[in-house]
C-alpha cells in the first residue's frame, strides 16, 4: 500500500473492495525509504509511474473514463479485446444507463451484446470514484463472447445439421433398403448403388467437417488474428496443393504476385483455407477446362477501407454467376443452381470464407459476368510496422 501512496496514487485506482469508497484520505507523506520490508528504496533516476502505464501493465481489459465520460485511457488488453468497437461500447444504452445510475452507487455490473462488426458479449463492471468533482470511472471488461457463441452454436448446429443431413441420409437409407430387397442379387446395380452411397456418405462427412470448422471460426471471430503472413509463399503453397485437382479438371492456374507486398495481419492457416475454398470453387464451378488466375496486389487507394491493404483474388473464365445470386452467395447452404458443383459441395465454402474475412477485419467482393467469368477478391489489412 505504501508503495502506491509514495507515487501519488489514491485509492481510486486500487481495485480493493475491502476499503470503502468513502474513505478518502490525502496521500500519506512519503514513508522513510527503509519502511517497506524487502523492497529497495525508489531510485529517483527511474521514470515515475503514470495511470496509463499502470493500466497497460494489467492483464485484464480496463477502460478509465474522465469526467464527461470521455476516455482517459483504454489499456492494451482492452484495445486488443475491443479494437475499434470502443466508441460503440461507450454509447451502448445499457452502459449509458449504468453510468447514469452510478451517481447513486459506486458499484454496478452489466452484461451487454454488440452485433457488429462481429458479435461480442461483454460483462462490464463499473467502479466510480465518488469524491465530488472526480468523475473518474473504471470499466473492467470481461469477454463472454465464447460462452455465448457456444450456446448459439449448439442451436445452429442442430438446426443446420438436421436439415442438411436429412436429404443425403434419406437417399442412403433408400439405397440400403433396395440392396436388401429387390436388388439383393443384382450385381451391376449393387456396384452402381454402392458408388452413389459412397458419394453421399462422403458428402455428409464433408458437411460435418465444414460445419465444425465454421463453428470453430465463429467461436474466435471476435478476436483479431495476431499473425503476420507474407503473401508470396502462402499463394505458392496453396497453388501447389491444387495441382492434382487442376490436372483432373484440365484447368490451368497462373499465379501473379506483385513485387514488394508487405505482410498481411492474418492467421496463416485460416488464410490458406480462404484461398483453398476459393480455388476449389473456381475449379468446380468452371465446369471444364478453365484459365484460373490467383493474384496478390496492393490495394488501390480509394477502393477499400482507408488503411493500407493487400488484395488477394481468384478469377476464372468459367460460365459466371447470374447477378441475382451474387448478394446471397455467402449465405449458408445457398446454392445458385443445381449444377454439378451443387451436388458435391457442402454449401458452406463461401460462408467459411466470409467469417474468416470478417475475423480479419477484411472485405470480400464477388464480381461476375455470365459467360465471361467470376472474380472473388479479398481485401486484407497489412500488418503495421513494428507490431
Amino acid at each position, binding site marked *: 500500500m505504501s508503495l502506491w501512496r509514495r507515487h501519488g496514487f489514491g485509492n481510486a485506482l486500487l481495485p480493493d473492495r475491502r476499503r470503502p469508497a468513502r474513505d478518502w484520505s490525502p496521500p500519506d507523506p512519503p514513508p522513510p525509504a527503509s519502511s517497506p520490508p524487502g523492497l529497495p528504496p525508489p531510485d529517483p533516476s527511474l521514470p515515475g509511474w503514470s495511470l496509463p502505464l499502470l493500466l497497460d501493465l494489467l492483464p485484464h481489459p480496463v477502460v478509465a473514463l474522465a469526467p464527461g465520460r470521455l476516455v482517459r485511457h483504454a489499456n492494451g488488453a482492452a484495445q486488443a479485446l475491443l479494437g475499434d468497437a470502443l*466508441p460503440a461500447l461507450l454509447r451502448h*444504452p445499457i452502459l449509458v444507463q449504468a453510468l447514469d445510475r452510478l451517481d447513486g452507487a459506486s458499484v454496478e455490473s452489466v452484461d451487454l451484446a454488440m452485433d*457488429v*462488426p462481429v458479435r461480442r458479449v461483454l460483462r462490464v463492471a463499473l467502479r466510480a470514484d465518488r469524491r465530488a468533482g472526480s468523475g473518474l470511472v473504471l470499466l473492467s471488461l470481461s469477454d463472454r463472447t465464447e460462452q455465448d457463441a457456444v450456446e448459439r452454436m449448439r442451436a445452429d448446429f442442430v438446426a443446420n445439421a438436421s436439415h442438411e443431413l436429412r436429404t443425403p441420409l434419406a437417399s442412403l437409407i433408400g439405397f440400403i433398403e433396395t440392396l436388401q430387397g429387390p436388388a439383393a442379387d443384382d450385381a451391376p446395380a449393387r456396384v452402381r448403388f454402392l458408388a452413389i452411397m459412397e458419394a453421399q456418405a462422403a458428402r455428409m462427412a464433408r458437411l460435418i467437417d465444414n460445419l465444425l470448422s465454421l463453428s470453430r471460426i465463429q467461436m474466435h471471430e471476435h478476436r483479431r488474428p495476431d499473425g503476420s503472413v507474407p503473401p508470396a509463399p502462402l499463394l505458392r503453397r496453396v497453388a501447389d496443393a491444387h495441382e492434382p485437382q487442376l490436372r483432373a479438371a484440365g484447368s490451368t492456374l497462373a499465379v501473379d504476385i506483385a513485387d514488394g507486398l508487405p505482410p498481411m495481419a492474418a492467421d496463416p492457416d485460416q488464410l490458406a483455407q480462404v484461398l483453398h475454398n476459393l480455388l476449389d470453387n473456381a475449379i468446380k464451378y468452371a465446369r471444364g477446362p478453365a484459365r484460373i488466375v490467383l493474384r496478390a496486389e496492393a490495394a488501390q487507394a480509394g477502393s477499400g477501407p482507408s488503411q493500407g491493404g493487400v488484395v488477394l483474388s481468384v478469377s476464372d473464365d468459367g460460365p459466371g454467376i447470374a447477378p*441475382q445470386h451474387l448478394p446471397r452467395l*455467402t*449465405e449458408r447452404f445457398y446454392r445458385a443452381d443445381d449444377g454439378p458443383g451443387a451436388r458435391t459441395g457442402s454449401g458452406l465454402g463461401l460462408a467459411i470464407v466470409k467469417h474468416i474475412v*470478417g475475423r480479419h477485419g477484411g472485405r470480400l467482393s464477388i464480381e461476375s459476368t455470365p459467360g465471361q467469368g467470376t472474380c472473388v477478391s479479398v481485401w486484407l489489412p497489412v500488418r503495421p510496422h513494428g507490431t
Partner: protein
Amino acid sequence: MSNPGHIVTSYEQELNQLRGLMARMGGLVESQTAHAIQAILEHNPEAAQMAMEQDPEVDALEREVEARAIKMLALRAPMAQDLREIVSALKVTSDLERIGDYAANVAKRSLRLGTAGADISLGGLRNMGRLVQEGLRLAIDALGQNDKDKALDVWRSDKAVDEIYTAMFRELVTYMMEDPRNIGACTHLLFIAKNLERIGDHATNIAERVHYAVTGEMLPPARPRGGFTPEATP
C-alpha cells in the same frame, strides 16, 4: 477535434454536451435496430417490445439536441467548422430519429408476422441486417470522431445493401406467386426489408453530413459504384 480550444470554455462544454447527446442517441438507435432485427430473425417478441419502448427516448433526445443546437446558433454565432458541425447536428438528429422510427416499425411488423413466415428463409434478411447494422455503426463512429475517412467508407458501402434488397424483393415475390397463402407474411417481410434499406440510406446521409462538417465539401450526389463494397459480408 484538432482545433485549438475555444476562448469561451463554456462554449466548448456546450459543444461537447451536444456531441454527447448525439452519441447517446446514436447508441439508442443502434440498439433499437439490433433489437428489431433480433425480433424478426429469432421470432422474439421481447426484443420487439424493447425496440418499440426505446422510441420515445429517441424522440425526446431529438428535441433536446434541436433545442440546444438552435440556442447555440442564436447565442454563440459559430463560424466555419463549428457552424457546419452544429447545422449538421440538426440534420443528423432527424436522420437518427427516422432510423429509430423504421426500427420500431420493423419490430411492430415482427409481432404481427409472428411465426407466420416460419418456413420462409430469412437468410437474405439476416445478411441485410448485418450490413445495415455495420453501416450504421460506422456512420455513428464517424460522427463521434469527426472522421471523414470512415464517413467515406459508409458512403461507398451502401450499394451492397441496395443489391441485397433487390435480391430479396425478387425472392419474396416468387414465394407469393408460388403460394397465395404466403402473401400476408411476405408483404410484411417486404416492408421489413424496405425499412432496413431505408435505415441504410439514412446511415449514408449521416456519413455525408459528417464529411461535410469536417471538410466543408459536399459529396457528389451520385454514389460511386464498384470498388471494395462489402459484398454481402457477415
